[in-house]
């Protein structure tokens, strides 16, 4: 049973998932890889993470999305035991830091922000050292993981000479050494060039397809949309959306067409009576939303009225627009500040 939220600003009824069981995703089991309830972290008067709940099922590809400063990385740092929560429950495969110490991370690998290595050692030496810290058995897999991330041939170069993208890939290799069941990636495509982003996403896709549970943090809606099954959207330490990508997509506004004409004011007036069309003025141009047929008809009407279109371009992607609405509007706006309910995580 889902709780109905107030309508979103563009008039689409919103089902922000506050109290409904998450829809099942193919290949996902009932066992939780990550269970977070009421997790809170404060730095003095600043609440970096404010009582959030997240549940990641095994086999799932889960996205934590939010702008910089939303608290995504803080959550992941708490997951890895790098910082201690002030309140709440955090379990990984049913284990917690309080009860299991470093065993909490058994079967877990990943990196926080950009992966860091010892620059005065070679890539291979770094991996050997990290494999040693994992008990040594992973040393046999170094060649294998280097091949996966395509660093074979550069593995005997010092990391200090690696490009940013190569370090990101070495970070993935270091994670794979642990043969993880849960891979946690924090902004894996951050700082990469377009080709690097494409390759990183392809790699994450392949890892996810192999059955790995992936917890991905990102500020890029397109990245999360492409890779993830479920998503939690955070804003200033709180969850503002929690649900499936498909449900989020259903709530997204229709994509706007951005229109400039010889007479925008007259064009806006003409749109007032058009069926299935909404026009708003935005940043010196008209944002036109409606079905393709309605927009086609509107353009013809403009021409008949002697108003010449000077440009008609596609606006931001619907999910992107929804993301900005969720994370940039004031806290009083309806969808903001909503929390994932405990029930959704059970």
């Amino acid at each position: 049973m889902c709780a109905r939220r107030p309508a979103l600003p563009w008039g689409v009824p919103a089902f922000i998932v506050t109290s409904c069981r998450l829809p099942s995703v193919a290949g996902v089991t009932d066992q939780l890889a990550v269970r977070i309830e009421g997790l809170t972290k404060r730095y003095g008067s600043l609440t970096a993470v404010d009582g959030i709940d997240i549940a990641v099922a095994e086999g799932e590809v889960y996205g934590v999305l939010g702008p910089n400063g939303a608290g995504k990385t803080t959550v992941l740092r708490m997951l890895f035991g790098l910082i201690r929560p002030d309140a709440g429950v955090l379990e990984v495969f049913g284990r917690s830091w309080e009860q299991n110490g470093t065993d909490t991370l058994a079967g877990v690998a990943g990196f926080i922000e950009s992966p860091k290595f010892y620059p005065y050692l070679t890539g291979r030496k770094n991996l050997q050292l990290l494999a040693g810290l994992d008990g040594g058995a992973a040393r046999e897999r170094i060649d294998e993981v280097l091949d996966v991330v395509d660093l074979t041939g550069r593995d005997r170069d010092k990391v200090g000479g690696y490009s940013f993208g190569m370090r990101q890939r070495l970070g993935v290799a270091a994670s794979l050494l642990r043969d993880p069941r849960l891979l946690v990636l924090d902004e894996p495509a951050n700082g990469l060039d377009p080709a690097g982003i494409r390759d990183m996403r392809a790699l994450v896709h392949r890892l996810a397809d192999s059955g790995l549970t992936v917890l991905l943090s990102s500020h890029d809606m397109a990245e999360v949309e492409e890779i993830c099954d479920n998503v939690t959207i955070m804003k200033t330490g709180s969850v503002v959306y929690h649900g499936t990508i498909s449900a989020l997509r259903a709530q997204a506004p229709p994509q706007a067409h951005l229109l400039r004409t010889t007479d925008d004011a007259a064009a806006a007036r003409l749109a007032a009576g058009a069926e299935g069309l909404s026009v708003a003025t935005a940043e010196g141009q008209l944002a036109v939303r409606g079905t393709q047929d309605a927009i086609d008809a509107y353009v013809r009407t403009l021409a008949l009225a002697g108003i010449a279109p000077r440009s008609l371009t596609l606006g931001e992607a619907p999910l992107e627009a929804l993301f900005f609405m969720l994370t940039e509007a004031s806290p009083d706006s309806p969808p903001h500040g909503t929390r994932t309910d405990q029930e959704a995580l059970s």
Partner: protein
Amino acid sequence: MTTARALPTTPAGPGHAGPSPARPAGVGTAYRWEITKLAALVRTRAALAAALVLPPLVVLVLNGQTPPVDTLYGRYVHDSGYAVPLLLLGFATQFVYPLLTSLVAGDIFASEDHFGTWKTVLTRSVSRSQVFWAKTLAASTFAVVLLGVLATSSIVSSLLLVGHQPLTGLTGQTIAPGRALGLVAAAWATDLPPLIGFTALAILLSVVSRNPAVGVVGPVVIGFVMSLVGSVGGIGLLRPALLTTPLESWHGLFTDPSFHGVIWQGVAVSAVWTAVCLFLAYSSLRRRDITGG
């Protein structure tokens, strides 16, 4: 990146039991890992090379000059090969020990902050406690090796270049070469406890400041201040508690009769400094949030 490559052995998919929990690395593994890192650092090798090469150079220079009569054993450097290592020992205690040991100990924790690698290490199967003790052992190992190299190089080079004549004691007695060798070696050994104390101090500064420069320079400055304070009169109660005081405890070995009480007092003082510094460093590392990098 080629995206068509085969994945490594990966989990079989949802519901599979997954790999067994990683075997804990333990302090031993983490210690070997620290030693490997230290061995790869140019700074470490340079410090050891300096400890090996500088004493013979100093002996060579002293051999061709007027003896520095105003320093302890300075007047005897041409008379006995056992006097030169003691002169060097006195010099080393002033600045060299704190500097050389803090080159590693002052950097060993802070460098993880500098490189942002705490998160790399602590997201593996190793705890903060294990990393702390591994790093502490590695820094102490370096201090011991450094002292050993410095002592060996000083004694061997001066015996080769000056000779193994009898040594004049601090109370004017003559010490036979065989016994002098043992006493000189013992004198260098008495510096080990305060050296470990300085190592612990450097570790504390390294952990707390998270800044390699503070970790390296701090002990040198503190050592210098302690030396100054120790040379001022009217601080009878404070002087034995200074970490620099045990560095002079070897003097009692070269008197007749010899006195060892100050040596054991120095060991106790060094142990207290070591314990307090390590406790504070350990507490700080255990408590702190790893937010950098």
